[in-house]
């Protein structure tokens, strides 16, 4: 049920994000989801792609520092209060979200949100038990 996410260290200077997307594009890697977290000095780009290993490989060859992390993709009902319902579950189970971002694609009538937990296995179990759909990696890469 886990989804592989790549994170890339970026200095805050112009053209770095463009360079990443250019390298991926030239290698035929398609970005499924993306989030950029930044500070005044540097940023961390987090992406989910259709071919994790290849993306990691070409970015490393391009001189970037690349990490791989496991995250989960959760279907969130696309109506007011949809996300709140899921966050309530996490709160009552004391599951701490390290970070999260929304997926642009839609899956049926739902939006997709990516969550990064420290306790990823417990999070998958808790959400599953409460009837929340956690999408398998293959499905996310192919969306």
């Amino acid at each position: 049920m886990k989804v592989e996410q790549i994170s890339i260290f970026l200095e805050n200077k112009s053209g770095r994000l463009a360079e990443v997307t250019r390298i991926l594009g030239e290698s035929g890697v398609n970005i499924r989801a993306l989030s950029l977290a930044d500070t005044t000095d540097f940023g961390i780009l987090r992406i989910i792609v259709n071919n994790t290993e290849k993306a990691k490989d070409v970015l490393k060859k391009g001189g970037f520092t690349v990490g791989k992390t496991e995250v989960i993709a959760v279907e969130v009902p696309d109506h007011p209060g949809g996300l709140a319902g899921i966050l309530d579950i996490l709160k009552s189970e004391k599951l701490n979200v390290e970070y999260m971002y929304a997926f642009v694609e839609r899956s049926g009538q739902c939006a997709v949100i990516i969550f990064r937990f420290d306790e990823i296995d417990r999070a998958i179990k808790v959400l599953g038990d409460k009837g929340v759909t956690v999408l398998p990696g293959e499905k996310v890469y192919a969306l």
Partner: protein
Amino acid sequence: MIYNEEYETMPREALEALQLKRLQNVVKRVYEKVPFYKKRFDDAGIKPEDVTSLDDLKRLPFTYKQDLRDNYPFGLFTVPMEDVVRIHASSGTTGKPTVVGYTKKDIETWSELMARVLVAGGATKHDIIHNAYGYGLFTGGLGFHYGAETLGASVIPISGGNTKRQIMIMQDFGPTVLTCTPSYALHLAEVAEEVGSDFKKMKLKSGFFGAEPWSTVMRKEIEKKLNISAIDLYGLSEIIGPGVSTECMEAKDGLHVFEDHFIPEIIDPVTEEVLPPGSQGELVFTTITKEAFPVIRYRTRDISTLNYDPCVCGRNFARMARVSGRTDDMLIIRGVNVFPSQIESVLLEIEGVEPHYQIMVDRDGALDILGIDVEVNETVFSDEIKNLQNLEKRIEHDIKDILGVSATVKLVEPKTIKRSEGKAVRVIDKRKI
């Protein structure tokens, strides 16, 4: 193990009496035989007979590398050339080489010191020594060679270069001890891997590495890759060559200076004051037994500290800390002496951070600003902002803790700091003073 119990374990009182006698002797000799020293001593208003205690050493004038160049090639020798049996010289990368000479007795002294080094590191006459230090004008190769023969070990005088052949000889001859520069040791490991040789299947058990600064991290890497115990030794041709000081295998905690032949001091490189034991500063050596080429208070430019505490190995000689840098690179930031090597050691302590860094000094009004760019590698990289910010804070904290100066640390992408072909350019000083 100790090669020369009598001298290496001599009680300090007896050692100091011996040092004083030898110091008086050498001071008198250079004053009488070398016009350069006579002038220096006269200018400083000191006569050889004024040296009545070891404390008087600090009144003697320093000798600088430039003095050796000014008296090139043989101007500082105190014996006629007919008594000189060997000449060595530095590479002379920054000018004329510095030339040093040895009498027959000097070679004997040096050979004994190198035998002491080998024994301190656990070598015996039963060892086969693969000596990959360069033979020639450089003191490394012949220094180890004579030391190994004095000890009675078997020497393979392979010298440097032709690395694949060196690996073959190591496999076939089965040397138990390797002597070379630390960087060449790592190169040997790389080439062995390329040709499919395994150091674990060789008989090597220890290595003696010197002639260039190296770090604890590098020691661990050499020990792991070559499957040996690595010993650090120190020396410079101006003093005698390798064999000025060495680590003992028992403690590996500082390098014992052979004080019956060389008197070490630590000075503040700016004020030139002698600093108390434990203080960091520039190493200064006075040779007290050399015949052909004695030097008085030679400024090495190497940064170290001296520790007079007794060592578990039984030697009574002071221990100098591994050389951590050069005074030539020293920065003064807000009145504090800062060496790039100190910053490097902080970075090395933080696991995984490779020492690719750049130091920037600037001035904001009257205040010096110290900035350090550190390249991020995969070991320390995290997908969480807070972890990277904590890394920056931790480096800043450790630098403040060790140097007493605050710095702003910035993480940068790998390979963004300019690589240098020769000596790395670690510091960009933008201050206009």
